[in-house]
């Protein structure tokens, strides 16, 4: 609270984001320890969590007051005008402090109290059990086992304690490999496809500047390949664009060579490699050819695949551009599409999707295991592994399965949520919408396969809301070790049970477990299938959305159907009861009397319900008020808006004169 100087400012104006004529709502602004609250004259409340604030900007003073623009991480943008500059300055400073905490302990999750006792809290945390999930996939089995190598986070700090590796990979091999891989993130199992016996594995890039080959790493890759009896080759997928790792790619190729035992020193210093790449490659080829070690059969057991997903910095600026474009006032269609194009956002989404499709195809069609990596193996690798699994396994398309997927491929494998989401006041270059992209890819899948997912768009939006909200402990911290140190399970709550309690809101009414039979989704990534996700990036701009939602209607109707089914059962049993009673009635009057008291009441409620039934239906379908002012048609006709007062005043003038 020490940051809050002013807790309440009156006569604040909230401007319409897209209006060019300063249309506004006037109300009172409150600052609490956790939220910014604006209550307008109609008592409509706008709550903004401090953690959601991405940037606060104080614009130049105008005649009506001091403008304050707040951009949120959930893509809400609010534009206030505070009458007095002093107040504005106070609020500005407070928000700057409140939106960027220095310590984890100051995050909302540590003070949030949903009134649960410790047992409930613990049960909440135990809701998603990853050991259970690996069991579901079918590991451990004869080829894969649980490794205790990282039990104490000694090998890799950013991996979870429990890792699954090929049974034939011994601990020294793992340790050796981990030394060869960036941040110690050696190849481990991410997803096991039981019927194909193929695996998705993940790791980080081999360390550059390493002066020799790494036998242990070679062994580990061999072991992964051998753990799949169904196929003699495996893929190594580098999710980075080829041009960015051109030099690096050569070394990738070399892994293959190493595996076929070309004994040569090929890992050179990065700088040397970059400078005389060609010379070296030639030399290498010569060496290989000259010594005649090349064994075609063995060489073919690793296939390299590049998919061009750009790095976190490119993604960050891409989103920045996208938001600039769609936040423009009076945006024209052409500016919108050229902005969409130049932001590159949809191109990046398509790249992630294409990578996941490649992965899923390798497993489903070729039964080949795939090792996925990028640089550190926690951004693009997480995107591709999780999306690939989602395509392959219908379980991940259920509400609970999706939670498991996020826990597994994102949280446990050390996607740096706190850094990527900017939970703390840290390096802005670490912030990147990697997880948002994953959610957007899933949304695109739900658009192409409207019946394949148990959850709906609101579920994705809600999860997106909470990766930034810091209200729950799940996404706080950057890896499991850090989370344990923060004692999140004791001090904070897990998001998942709350989402499950609210499940009704997140159910897809069209979900059909039948369509799950076609278990592997094969999305079409033709460019025209990718669309701007309006409900995400304009979630709070009500006027841009359809005024009637088919989805909500169907969802409510589905709910209503369930209720009706229940009613029918009740009614049928009552009728049956009555009928039997009627026949027995004369014999056992006492029985009748015992039931009778409830029947008049019941009848009353029933008849009430019958009347209520249709109005309910109507409520479902009413349109959210739409008005021409919201849509600013007249702004496109300057003459129109200017003309009106002139006409009116003239008429009044005439009227007065005649009086």
């Amino acid at each position, binding site marked *: 609270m020490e940051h809050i100087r002013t807790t309440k400012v009156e006569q604040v104006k909230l401007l319409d984001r*897209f209006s060019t004529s300063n249309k506004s709502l006037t109300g009172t602004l409150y600052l609490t320890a956790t939220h910014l609250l604006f209550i307008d004259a109609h008592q409509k409340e706008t709550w903004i969590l401090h953690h959601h604030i991405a940037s606060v900007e104080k614009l130049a003073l105008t005649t009506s007051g001091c403008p304050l623009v707040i951009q949120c991480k959930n893509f809400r943008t609010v534009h206030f005008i505070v009458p007095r500059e002093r107040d504005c300055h106070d609020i500005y400073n407070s928000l700057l402090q409140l939106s960027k905490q220095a310590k984890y302990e100051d995050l909302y999750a540590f003070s949030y109290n949903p009134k649960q006792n410790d047992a409930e809290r613990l049960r909440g945390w135990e809701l998603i059990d990853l050991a259970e999930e690996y069991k579901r996939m079918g590991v451990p089995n004869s080829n894969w086992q649980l490794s205790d190598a990282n039990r104490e986070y000694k090998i890799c700090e950013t991996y979870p304690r429990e890792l699954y590796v090929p049974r034939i990979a011994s601990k020294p091999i793992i340790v050796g490999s981990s030394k060869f891989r960036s941040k110690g993130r050696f190849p481990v199992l991410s997803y096991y496809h039981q019927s194909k016996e193929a695996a998705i594995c993940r790791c980080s890039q081999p360390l550059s500047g390493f002066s020799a080959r790494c036998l242990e790493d070679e062994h580990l890759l061999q072991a992964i390949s051998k753990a799949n009896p169904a196929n003699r080759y495996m893929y190594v997928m580098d999710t980075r664009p080829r041009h960015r790792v051109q030099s690096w790619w050569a070394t990738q190729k070399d892994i293959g060579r190493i595996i076929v035992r070309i004994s040569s020193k090929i890992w050179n210093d990065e700088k040397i490699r970059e400078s005389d790449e060609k010379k070296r490659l030639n030399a290498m080829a010569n060496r290989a050819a000259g010594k005649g070690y090349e064994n075609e059969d063995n060489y073919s057991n690793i296939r390299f695949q590049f998919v061009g997903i750009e790095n976190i910095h490119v993604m960050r600026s891409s989103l920045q551009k996208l938001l600039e474009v*769609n936040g423009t006032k009076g*945006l*024209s*269609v*052409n500016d*919108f*599409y050229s902005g*969409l194009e130049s932001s*590159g956002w*949809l*191109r990046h989404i*398509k790249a992630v999707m294409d990578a996941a499709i490649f992965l899923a195809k390798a497993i489903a069609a070729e039964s080949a295991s795939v090792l996925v990596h990028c640089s550190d193996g926690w951004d693009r690798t997480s995107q591709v592994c999780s999306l690939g699994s989602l395509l392959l396994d219908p379980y991940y398309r259920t509400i609970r399965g999706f939670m498991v997927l996020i826990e597994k491929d994102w949280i446990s494998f050390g996607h740096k949520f706190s850094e990527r989401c900017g939970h703390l006041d840290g390096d802005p270059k670490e912030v990147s919408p990697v997880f948002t992209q994953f959610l957007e890819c899933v949304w695109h899948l739900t658009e192409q*396969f*409207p*019946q394949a997912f148990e959850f709906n768009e609101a579920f994705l939006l809600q999860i997106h809301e909470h990766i930034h909200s810091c209200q729950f402990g799940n996404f706080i911290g950057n890896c499991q070790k850090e989370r344990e140190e923060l004692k999140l399970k004791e001090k904070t709550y897990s998001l998942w049970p709350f989402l499950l309690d609210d499940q009704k809101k997140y159910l897809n009414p*069209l979900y059909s477990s039948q*369509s799950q039979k076609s278990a592997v989704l094969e999305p079409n990534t*033709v*460019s*025209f299938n990718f*669309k701007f996700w*309006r409900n995400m990036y*304009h979630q709070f701009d009500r*006027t*841009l*959305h359809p*005024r*009637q*939602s*088919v989805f909500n*209607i*169907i969802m409510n*109707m589905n709910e209503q*159907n369930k209720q*009706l*089914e229940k*009613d*029918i059962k009740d*009614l*049928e049993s009552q*009728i049956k009861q*009555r009928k039997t009673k*009627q026949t027995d*009635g004369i014999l056992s009057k006492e029985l*009748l009397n015992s039931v009778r008291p409830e029947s008049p009441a019941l*009848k009353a409620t029933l008849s009430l319900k019958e009347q209520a*039934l249709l109005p309910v239906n*109507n409520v479902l*379908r009413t*349109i959210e008020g*739409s008005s*021409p002012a919201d849509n600013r*048609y*007249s702004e*496109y006709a300057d*003459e*129109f808006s200017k003309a009106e007062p002139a*006409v009116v005043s003239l*008429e009044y003038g005439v009227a007065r004169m005649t009086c």
Partner: protein
Amino acid sequence: MSVIKSSSFHTHTHTNLSLFQVLNNFWQFIQRTPCCAEVPAWWVQLHAFSVQGLFGKNSEQLTNSSSGLELEGSVRGRRVESPTDNTEELWLLHSNIDAIDKRFVGPLGTIIIKCKDFRIIQLDIPGMEECLNIASSIEALSTLDSITLMYPFFYRPMFEVIEDGWHSFLPEQEFELYSSTISEWRLSYVNKEFSVCPSYPPAVIVPKAIDDDALRKVATFRHGGRFPVLSYYHKKNGMVIMRSGQPLTGTNGRRCKEDEKLINATLRAGKRGYIIDTRPLNIAQQARAKGGGFEQEAHYPQWRRIHKSIDRYHILQESLIKLVESCNDQTQNMDRWLSKLEASNWLTHIKEILTTACLAAQCLDREGASILIHGTEGTDSTLQVTSLAQIILEPRSRTIRGFEALIEREWLQAGHPFQQRCAQSAYCNSKQKWESPVFLLFLDCVWQILRQFPCSFEFNENFLIMLFEHAYASQFGTFLGNNESERCKLKLQQKTMSLWSWVNRPSELSKFTNPLFEANNLVIWPSVAPQSLQLWEGIFLRWNRSSKYLDEAYEEMVNIIEYNKELQAKVNLLRRQLAELETEDGVQESP
């Protein structure tokens, strides 16, 4: 003309019409009846695998000549096997063919048929001569100059006509709907002989205060004789939308007292009106050099003019060509797709038209002012605006019958030159000035509103797609001709079937009904922000993507709605039963 060989011919053409939409891929190719100028055949029939015996001699003969021919559809998707004898058919109306290309690689000839509904079909035909013959036949048949040789004149329906569509939406009936509320307006037959305005219908609604002689004078002052007539009457406040051609002021600022009197007659005392000119000011000014122009403030002091810029003619046609070309390219990367979508300007046109229509509706409903809308001729952008404003304002025009009436009133009778505008579609390179997808843009705008208010329309997307198809190629006479006068001369009412006769049968209507429809009496204000507008996939990506999963989802949705109705009915029934039992009980117990 002895064109009709036998009535059975028509029987078959009709039975197969339904297959037309179902079938997909890999056709063997058969061309129906040998062709020469005097004996037109109206259909290209595409046959898969084996040929049904259904067609008698003709088809057998053709099977022999074309056996082993393979046709590769551009449509991707799985082959649908028909339940009968492994036969698949595709019937294509010749008038639906927009362009045809031929290519030869060695002895193999390829014909690519490009349809006006944007579908592309590729036929591989061995034998150069045969290929050339087929190609030239198709070419000749798809470009008949005489309207009277077109299929609608020979089509005989196989369904029972319940209601003759030609009489479904008579101007008198439409006026009846209003007559109780509008006393200041009358139905005028000044154009009975089409002599005052060739593109107007015989009956038009005009202010009561203006007599027919004045109308004749006004007609000379307006482009194409299109004097201001009533387009829509807003019952809520008595304000109106009128439409007309541009005033012929010319460079010397000609004026016409009767014209001023006519449009002022529609204003209530002390009220002002708006004139929406669909052209930008500079274009309107240029029009004066050619004798056209716009209403000068000095002569129309009670009216405020607003200029908008809705494009017309070849600009729209080029936009369509670019858009369709881009939609057909499956290989382009994301940047190219987005930049081509932008360069086509299609959605810009949509936005401009919708914005103008919304502005008109806003003037009427919120500002309480009457409006006059015109562009140059008043047959294109003017009609887009007047009809869309009605969709926004009037609940009736969002019902199936109301929408049909709207098309009849605001497009057919208002003289939108369908014959000219829809002569060619996106694949033709003739580039005639009068070819322009004005009506398609209107349908697209309706679709945009439908998407934003999915429960406020009685019809669904398929209804709009169907109208698009029939405007370009149809077995019905409804969209033939450029105006009522031409339709009268062609005797379409006597010689052809109306589209509405077919559509308004319950079996057809069920396909076009929106299961979510709930009558909504409010004015619906759509969003016109670029983020809210979308490419109409049902039209432009129709042949380029599989809609299997979307169709299944739609079916599921319909099932849920049907099930809901069923359950409600059942609950009500059971409650009644229970109530009866209870009263019986009561009767038994009380004594």
